[in-house]
């Protein structure tokens, strides 16, 4: 039954978007996490989605069965180096290292994730109402 697959598909997409939202939260929460060594600085994370495709007929396209998070990558960006000798985490030269998280970028990512989540929730609601309507065929 096709419409049941819709639930699974939209559900898995919502799960993937939630994980993306969690990643954004993690990046934003750690925007001021100082470290005294460049290696110890929090690195911003990004999720990468992957579609599990149905088996395609030769010469034809295939649709997705579900959407999953393929991997969570850490971005190797240079940490911000701040001169702040009074900071408790400062090294001998008086520098502290901050993660190079772009708050603007993360906010955009957050909005994109929440919009996609909403789209999928709407798809689920529509599928549900269509299925309920399908159950009433022939009852009038």
């Amino acid at each position, binding site marked *: *039954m*096709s*419409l049941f*697959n*819709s639930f699974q*598909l*939209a559900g*898995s*997409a919502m799960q*993937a*978007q939630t994980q*993306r939202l969690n990643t954004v939260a993690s990046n934003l929460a750690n925007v001021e996490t100082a470290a005294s060594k460049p290696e110890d600085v929090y690195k911003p994370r990004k999720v*990468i*989605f*992957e*579609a599990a495709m*149905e*088996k*395609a*007929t030769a010469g*034809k*396209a*295939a*649709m*997705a069965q579900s*959407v999953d998070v393929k991997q969570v990558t850490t971005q190797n960006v240079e940490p911000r180096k701040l001169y702040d000798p009074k900071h408790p985490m400062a090294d001998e030269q008086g520098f502290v290292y901050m993660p190079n998280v772009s708050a603007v970028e993360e906010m955009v990512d957050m909005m*994109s*994730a929440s919009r*996609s989540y909403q*789209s*999928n929730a709407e*798809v689920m609601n*529509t*599928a549900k109402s*269509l299925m309920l*309507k*399908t159950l009433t*065929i*022939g009852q*009038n």
Partner: protein
Amino acid sequence: MLNKITDSIQFSAETLKLRAHRQEVITSNIANVDTPNYKAVDFNFKSALHSVASKAGLMPNASGSAPLATTTPASQGLATTHAGHISSTGARGSMSTSALLEYRRNVNPAMDNNTVDLEKERAAFAENTIKYQAAIRALNDDVSGLKTAMGNGQG
């Protein structure tokens, strides 16, 4: 007479099945709006319905008013003289819809090679939702017509 009504019911049922499948296909596009390298897919509803209906002997006649009742008995299909031949009968209403999908053309891929246009997909989703409901209504009308015919004419 009953044949005509049941054919009409079957035609509506095939439409409903295809609509449900298209709903799933568009769901797949919407779900993968952020998936790198995903290509938006869809199928041509008109030709899909045409192929399903003609396979089941339900094609509407030229005026398009009502589905034409099948005149050939179901046993009168093409002869299969080889193991690899596909029977022309027996496929009634059991066509695999997965063989219909095509990639959307004339799209601008994003930086990650994703070709889903969310606005277009949502519009197609809304359109397909309405048409699914229309197919349900057509099916309901067929059923109530059958009920009327089976009754004694007093409603």
